[in-house]
């Protein structure tokens, strides 16, 4: 099969193939179309051909195309070791160190945004979207339950959940069929019980899951919460079905990312009735994940692709699209416009600004097969099928067998 993928280069005009994930919000798609149109107007010798796909179709297309002549010049992917990292490992992504020097990208992006693309050595990908996750809560239900302040520690968090349950509402909603939804709270318990250093060692396999007592503590928290504080039958429904409980005022909390701001408004909830607080892990790190734009290793149009990514992540463009893709831009010079921001946007902005560093969702940290085993153990513990004391040993057994 012929190597050297990407768009064409004919008659002095370069076509850059750009594969992205679907953006559900119409405003986001319009913003991307405008970025492309403006770039092409300024660079008439370059055409950007964008192909957007749903998550699984995007993954399938990349798997079959990378390394062949059908590969795109630029592809959009999550930056964690379990996803973007697997493509780096598979030799599909180009090291962009020279372009980082040429365009001074090191100075453009925040340290949190740069960390995921520099973790493999060199510069793999260009950051474009950093999403942070936190607890969204229904202010009225909190007041009804007698909660006057948001929790700062995991123990306070659990105590508040009990108050909410006693007041007759479901404390927090989760949809278990998608696995990654429940995973968010398990990751939170791991970060909170183990601390940042041990959490990082666990997910990079530098610590033994079976030897760390904090792992058992985290899984015990998960079992307590799933039994007492999750919506009944959570494991048999998906996240959209469970989110309906939050929008309908039946559940008091949702663990969601900053994209939830738009969803809350779309679901006809008043953003002023919804509050946001940082996950009370005590480590002061932001919980989230990043998407980056990667240039294919075999692309024939790397220069044109880099030129477009430079434009896309520039302060000018990022300022124009601020708040459309994520609450905060990866470009550290971009500031939110207070006039356009809702109370919810401001609250999420506070969460971003009050945290330092990032701990990523574990489906980003772990490989795909490790993630699936992590989910299996998580769901067994959550449904009472496994003693939390055995969870760490089970996970370690799988990691050791690889």
């Amino acid at each position, binding site marked *: 099969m012929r190597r050297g993928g990407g768009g064409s280069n004919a008659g002095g005009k370069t076509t850059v193939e750009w594969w992205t994930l679907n953006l559900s919000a119409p405003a986001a798609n319009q913003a991307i179309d405008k970025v492309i149109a403006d770039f092409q107007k300024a660079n008439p010798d370059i055409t950007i051909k964008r192909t957007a796909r749903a998550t699984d179709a995007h993954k399938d297309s990349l798997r079959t195309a990378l390394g062949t002549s059908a590969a795109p010049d630029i592809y959009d992917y999550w930056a964690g070791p379990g996803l973007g990292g697997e493509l780096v490992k598979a*030799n599909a992504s180009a090291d962009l160190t020279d372009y980082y020097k040429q365009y001074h990208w090191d100075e453009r992006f925040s340290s949190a945004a740069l960390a995921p693309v520099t973790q493999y050595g060199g510069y793999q990908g260009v950051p474009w979207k950093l999403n942070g996750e936190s607890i969204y809560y229904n202010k009225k239900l909190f007041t009804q339950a007698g909660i006057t302040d948001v929790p700062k520690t995991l123990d306070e968090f659990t105590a508040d959940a009990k108050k909410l349950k006693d007041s007759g509402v479901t404390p927090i909603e989760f949809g278990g069929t998608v696995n990654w939804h429940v995973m968010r709270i398990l990751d939170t318990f791991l970060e909170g019980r183990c601390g940042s250093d041990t959490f990082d060692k666990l997910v990079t396999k530098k610590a033994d899951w079976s030897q760390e007592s904090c792992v058992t503590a985290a899984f015990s928290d998960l079992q307590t919460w799933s039994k007492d504080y999750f919506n009944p039958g959570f494991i048999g429904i998906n996240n959209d079905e469970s989110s309906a409980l939050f929008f309908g005022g039946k559940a008091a909390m949702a663990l969601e990312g900053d994209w939830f701001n738009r969803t809350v408004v779309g679901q006809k909830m008043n953003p002023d009735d919804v509050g946001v607080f940082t996950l009370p892990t005590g480590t002061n790190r932001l919980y989230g994940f990043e998407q980056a734009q990667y240039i294919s290793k075999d692309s024939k149009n790397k220069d044109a692709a880099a030129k477009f990514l430079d434009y896309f992540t520039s302060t000018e463009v990022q300022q124009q699209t601020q708040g459309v893709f994520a609450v905060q831009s990866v470009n550290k010079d971009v500031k939110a416009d207070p006039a356009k921001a809702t109370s919810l946007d401001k609250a999420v902005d506070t969460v971003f600004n009050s945290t330092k560093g990032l701990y990523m969702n574990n489906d980003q940290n772990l490989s795909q097969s490790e993630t699936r085993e992590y989910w299996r153990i998580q769901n067994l513990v959550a449904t009472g099928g496994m003693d939390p004391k055995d969870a760490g040993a089970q996970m370690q057994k799988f990691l050791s067998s690889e």
Partner: protein
Amino acid sequence: MTKLTDTRFPAQNAAQRSGTRQKKSLVQRIAKGGFIASLPFLAPALAAYIVFVIAPMISAVRLSLYRWSGYNTDPQVFVGFKNYVRLFTQDPVFWTSVQNTVVWVILSILIPTTLGLLMAIALNQPLIGRNLFRSVFYIPGVLAPIAVANMWRWMYNPNYGVFSEISKTLHIGDGSGVTLLSDPKVAIYAVFAAFVWQIAGLNMVLFLAGLQGVSKELLESARLDGANNWQVFKNVTLPALRPTIVIVVVLTIVHSIKVFDLIVGMTGGGPAQSSQVLALWSYTQSFLNHDFGLGNAVATVLLVVTLVLVVPYLIWSAKGADDNR
């Protein structure tokens, strides 16, 4: 006579005559029938079969001996039987998927087959609205499995589903509604219920067709001899249905071994991989875990299991065809 022939057909045409004899021979062989004769007619189907069935099977078996992530940029590394060793000794889900597949096959042979037979016998009687009932029972069989999965998933929804509402109304359990798909011990059976709903009508149609072939004379003479309903069924109807039963059982086994869509649509193999089956686990390992070696090892195990179950049927049917010649 020979001389005359030699005079009429000069020596230089001997080779042509030989060719003619060969052509005649081929024509004769085609006219006579047999494998060679049928080859030109079989060729298009055979080519498609080789390209789309045999070659992928061989490729799957070959890939099961390699370590490969599925990316063209990643080289395939030969690892021998390591994938099988890992599958049999270290994969925490493989044996669950084997157990579920076996349970699914056994239950499929027992429940939807029996149900289909009972419905066929009932709807073979002169009832009012018989055709309507036949259509109603058959309709689930023509629906796409993923549509059936969606429908049943909503029926099982713990917040809005019909089963949950019924259990709340009847005060079953703790009053929070039944959560069948949420219980790792029950989930696979909850999915199986949807399978029964879909497949029983299909079996009914096959049994109905079989029942039309039961000799009315034999049935009447059995009744004249004083046989009751059960005796007529056991000694006349059932033996006459034997070929249909074999077909239904084999089709059910094939359907149940490759069950995929319903599980994906209803549980995705969960919770905690408790409703995982071999076909879905093979897909999961290859396309979601990006471990094509392990995924194809699962596919090869599934192939062997299928062959063990289906080859006896093929031998039996081939023998039956020979006997009928």
